[in-house]
């Protein structure tokens, strides 16, 4: 009998394998492994569960995370977030004021996006059945019509430029700092709703695909893209925007920023001739101030992500396996 481990939920290789096994349970599947599902009529839907601890962290809390998370899954496929359903599962004894604080944060995110709460469910379960509070969110909306084919990994082509909207790993580093008692002034989660940042890119016909980097970080998204299209992706270490707080946490705990979770950072694949314009649009928004081109899609080394290091060497970027654990060696 095999048991699930926290690694199966960490967003890397083990999660990928588990998700495949789950999908196989459903004979009829319309799942294309993208962040949200889009029906033929252009209506989009996505859902996600949120269980982070600590529930309050610099830059956000569980409620804000839940609303942003699902809104972002729609946004990266060009679907305007319009409606939200929320499931609340609270542990017996949970502080009602804290619950409302989370939900007010979620409400504020919705307000800014003009996203309407249209339904939900609330459960209180016996002490110990959940760790405090779990939120599940479902977001729905409508695809912004474009002449081009639907955004998604299927549209990636050799030569496409890969952009990163901001420094990688800020959310994961913030959570790790809290968990391992590191005081990192200035480090906050990047938790944010990406629709206002990404929507202007929809006007570019050369926009191919976007992905919200969450668990497993930027590295996991790049690997998933490379493997789904059997193409290579080459990135340059020097091109990545960096956050000094993330680097400090990564150095202290022996973690790799490429795999630390994000909650408000996206990768964008775009036709090379429109990369400059895409960067201009991203950088004109506060969330994209540090956006940069980090690499290209290539025919070389299919299925693999190759990184050119700071000193000019080359190495592979693979998906992380299981939880990211701090190391002393």
């Amino acid at each position, binding site marked *: 009998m095999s048991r699930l481990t926290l690694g199966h939920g960490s967003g890397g290789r083990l999660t990928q394998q588990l998700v495949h096994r789950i999908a196989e349970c459903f004979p009829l599947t319309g799942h294309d492994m993208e962040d949200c599902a889009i029906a033929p009529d252009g209506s989009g839907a996505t859902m996600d569960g949120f269980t982070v601890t600590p529930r309050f962290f610099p830059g956000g809390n569980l409620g804000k995370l839940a609303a942003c998370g699902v809104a972002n899954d729609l946004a990266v496929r060009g679907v305007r977030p319009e409606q939200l359903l929320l499931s609340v599962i609270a542990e017996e004894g949970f502080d009602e004021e804290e619950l409302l604080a989370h939900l007010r944060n979620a409400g504020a995110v919705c307000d800014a996006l003009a996203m309407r709460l249209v339904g939900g469910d609330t459960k209180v379960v016996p002490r110990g059945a959940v760790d405090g509070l779990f939120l599940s969110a479902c977001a729905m909306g409508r695809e912004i019509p474009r002449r081009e084919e639907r955004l998604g990994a299927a549209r990636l082509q050799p030569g496409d430029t890969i952009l990163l909207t901001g420094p990688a790993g800020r959310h994961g580093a913030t959570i790790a*700092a809290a968990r391992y*008692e*590191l*005081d*990192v*002034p*200035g*480090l906050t989660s990047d938790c944010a709703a990406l629709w206002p940042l990404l929507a202007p890119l929809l006007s570019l016909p050369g926009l191919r695909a976007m992905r919200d980097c969450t668990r497993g970080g930027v590295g996991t998204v790049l690997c998933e893209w490379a493997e789904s299209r059997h193409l290579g992706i080459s990135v340059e270490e020097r091109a990545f925007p960096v956050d*000094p*707080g993330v*680097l*400090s*946490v990564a*150095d*202290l705990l*022996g973690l790799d920023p490429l795999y630390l979770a994000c909650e408000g950072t996206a990768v964008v694949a775009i036709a090379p001739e429109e990369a400059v314009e895409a960067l201009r649009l991203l950088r004109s928004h506060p969330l994209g101030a540090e956006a940069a081109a980090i690499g290209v899609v290539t025919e070389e080394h299919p299925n693999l992500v190759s990184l050119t290091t700071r000193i000019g060497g080359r190495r592979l970027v693979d998906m992380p396996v299981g939880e990211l654990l701090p*190391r*002393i*060696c």
Partner: protein
Amino acid sequence: MCLAIPHRIVAITDERTCRARAGTAEVLVRTDLLSSVQIGDSILVHAGFAIEKLREEDGRELESLWEEIRALEATLSPEPVSDSTDIPPVCPMAPSA
């Protein structure tokens, strides 16, 4: 085997503890393994313990190493040797692989 990174001491808390900064992070570090520390010291920290005080990079040591390498390079043929296979071994130290 040993992740250890430089920190700078910002406060001495007691006879075996200090607070030190690595990048933008500030952490508690144990100083049991060093005989004396003061604020401003640059220390190498492994698993929460300072294992040494870091000294300023001694440029002279490295510069003399580069000079030796340059001197050696000057005695070598101008072409990179590695592409040819018929140069006899210069160094008989180890048995041939």
